[in-house]
């Protein structure tokens, strides 16, 4: 089983990229995590190009199609998701409803340097994903105080959060193998 990881931040050393990579240690056997890393290469969504998307967008679509599930780690900008991430999801939602996100299991996690671990951004991401026809797992993973959240080896310091992350990934895998009908 393949999970496609998408970090919502373009910053190389981003906390959310680290959060995504921290999932690598928590995967059940037989599950691989592949990071998609061209958020910066996706142009602004343009309905005029909807039926003939640019190559970078088509590559993004193929990466989604090739994956059984998505894991999105989003930062929070002004209580919402970063424009680049929303833009990429908007592309992926077209043409609706027969888009690459249709029925795709997705888990959303988030890290922020404040207390609240991007909870509002995670909710926004799940809302957009649900509207696009994807199947977002309802559980959130708020990783607050991100400057102090990671150990040197990239794992999360907090065992409770680690357990919650493990459970969330297990839920995501279950959504692939035995989807809950909605």
């Amino acid at each position, binding site marked *: 089983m393949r999970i496609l990881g998408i970090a919502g931040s373009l910053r190389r050393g981003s906390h959310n990229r680290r959060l995504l990579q921290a999932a690598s240690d928590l995967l059940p056997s037989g599950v691989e995590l592949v990071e998609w890393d061209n958020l910066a290469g996706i142009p602004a969504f343009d309905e005029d190009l909807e039926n003939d998307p640019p190559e970078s967008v088509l590559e993004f679509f193929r990466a989604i199609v090739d994956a059984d599930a998505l894991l999105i780690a989003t930062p929070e900008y002004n*209580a919402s998701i970063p424009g680049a991430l929303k833009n990429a999801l908007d592309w992926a939602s077209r043409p609706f409803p027969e888009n690459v996100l249709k029925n795709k299991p997705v888990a959303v996690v988030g890290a922020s340097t*404040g*207390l*609240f671990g991007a909870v*509002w951004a995670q*909710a*926004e991401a799940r809302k957009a994903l649900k509207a696009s026809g994807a199947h977002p797992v309802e559980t959130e993973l*708020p990783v*607050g105080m991100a400057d102090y959240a990671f150990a040197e080896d990239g794992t999360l310091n907090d065992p409770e959060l680690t357990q919650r992350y493990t459970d969330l990934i297990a839920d995501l895998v279950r959504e692939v193998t035995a989807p809950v009908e909605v």
Partner: protein
Amino acid sequence: MSTTASPLAGTFNADPVHSNFAFAVRYQGVSLFKGTLDAVEATLTDGKLEGKAQVESISIRTPEQFRAHVLGGEDFFQADKFPEVTFVSTGFDVTGDNAVEVTGDLTIKDTTKPVTAKGTWVAPAPDAFGNTRAHLNLETVIDRTEWGLTWNAPLPSGGKALANEVTLTIELALVEQA
């Protein structure tokens, strides 16, 4: 008529290294955020406690925008206008073995309201350095919004991001003044 010397007679100054003012508040419904104001001055003079803490000494140092909001925000401390949190006692009762109840006026920003705190009082005794030292521990719960610390945000899952109830704890190591 003979009088017994009050256990609270004398003047004591808080030893800043061993004294602090701490707060704890729940966020996201379950997690507990703890912090301190470390720059504390306090005196206990014949049973009257007066203390102040510098808001700027709050233990929230990073991230920068978090600190800036807590210190400067109108819905937080506005430390540029109100740099100190102060407390002046109006009653100080040793209610039992080491048990103490202190009432007084707590001022945060431009609001002064009465509070009652309970805790423990360790009576003055000689320390290892030739001083006479006492210890006062007090705890109370306040509703921060009554003092104008009103910031909040609705959580996406319902409920509020930050609880209104804040537990305040003070630890004062009190050294008797000659």
